[in-house]
């Protein structure tokens, strides 16, 4: 059954980050993408033993560095100074991306412009003719992590749905997203099926009228 919460508003950004953090399995190796996904780190309970990976070459990344902790040689993928936790390890870029492609990373959390019902992800390029293409590690993360979680608003600023039948933006990876966390609902994607796990400020019936994809309640 879908857990529906129609009597409250949509999730705000903090609540969304908390929800993603709740669903990351204990003792997993996790990469949090630049931007909104970074906030998930604030809600991970240290007792659950989750190890953060940053693609510029570190496992065991700690919180953002402040004051005396700032070290110009210790940055995250967003080039923000961070700290190291006991048990941390440093490695070069080839090894860092081998961890992704080789299937060693359990979860990555990414933002998105669009996700298709089959899990195809578009998050790197608007496709505008004057836009400078810039991909970073997005394509490597999309194909490499065992589970790809997306955090996004369900509708864009113009009101168009971002969970779509087929991506119109240039794609990042094919059939790679396993879950989508949005302000209005959480979706589980498996083999072309979209199952709705939770709703916030809306209902499954309402979402069915607003999205052009087949929605199923979770079993």
């Amino acid at each position, binding site marked *: 059954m879908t857990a529906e919460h129609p009597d409250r508003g949509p999730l705000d950004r903090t609540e969304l980050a908390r929800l993603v953090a709740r669903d990351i399995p204990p003792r997993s190796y996790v990469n949090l993408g630049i931007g909104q996904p970074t906030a998930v780190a604030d809600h991970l309970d240290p007792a659950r033993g989750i190890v953060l990976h940053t*693609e510029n070459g570190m496992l065991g990344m700690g919180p953002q560095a402040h004051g005396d902790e700032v070290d110009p040689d210790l940055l995250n993928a967003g080039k923000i100074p961070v700290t*190291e936790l006991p048990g941390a390890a440093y490695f070069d*870029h080839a090894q860092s991306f081998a961890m992704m492609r080789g299937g060693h990373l359990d979860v990555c959390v990414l933002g998105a412009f669009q996700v298709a019902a089959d899990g195809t992800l578009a998050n790197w390029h608007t496709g505008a003719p004057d836009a*400078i293409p810039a*991909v970073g590690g997005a394509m490597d993360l999309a194909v*490499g992590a065992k589970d790809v979680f997306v955090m996004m608003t369900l509708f864009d600023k113009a009101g168009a749905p971002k969970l779509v039948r087929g991506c119109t933006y240039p794609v990042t990876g094919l059939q790679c997203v396993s879950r989508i966390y949005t302000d209005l609902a959480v979706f589980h994607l498996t083999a072309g099926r979209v199952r709705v796990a939770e709703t916030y400020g809306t209902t499954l019936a309402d979402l069915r009228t607003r999205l052009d994809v087949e929605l199923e309640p979770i079993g």
Partner: protein
Amino acid sequence: MVEIAPDPDAAVRGIADGSTVLIGGFGPAGQPYALIDALRRSGAGDLTVVNNNAGNGTTGLAALLATGRVRKIICSFPRQTDSFVFEELYAAGRIELEVAPQGNLAERIRAAGAGIGGFYTPTGAGTMLAEGKETRTIDGRVHVLEHPIRADVALIRAHTADGAGNLVYRKTGRNFGPIMATAARLTIAEVTRTVPVGGLDPEAVVTPGIFVDRVVVTG
């Protein structure tokens, strides 16, 4: 055998016009600023530069680009809030851009250093960045053929070198250094300090001295 150069200008001598130059660093960490400045002063032109980004602000790589002596840049993420030097050159058609997923960029450099003629990777399959490239289905998954990036010169930053050219790095400053060191005919490292032969624990060496041609201490 490694040469300890007296200053950055001596360290970069002899870099010819038309060279392909690998430049280490991810953000300020591991950027060989002194060597980049020396390369700019050397007047070498028609360069192809390989770096994760396309310069920030007006210093380092951005200052090199501003001279107009870089014909092409190969990177994963050229578009940043302070990459205006590159953006102006690109908009004016004065620099060629090749964007590669970050892990493919790293692995192409690694492959060059390891004598590998190319490799098939799932990263980028089905995307714009794989258009026109050979593909092969391996274990039911589409892989894209990527070619090595061989270079004439690598400019990297490490923390400590010994008299045999062995290098150790510091924290996330390691990033591209170890793979770039292997992929160029001439590898030049700027370091914080040197120690005599025997001053580094052989078990802790990250880049063996066989890959390093010149070292300069820049503090």
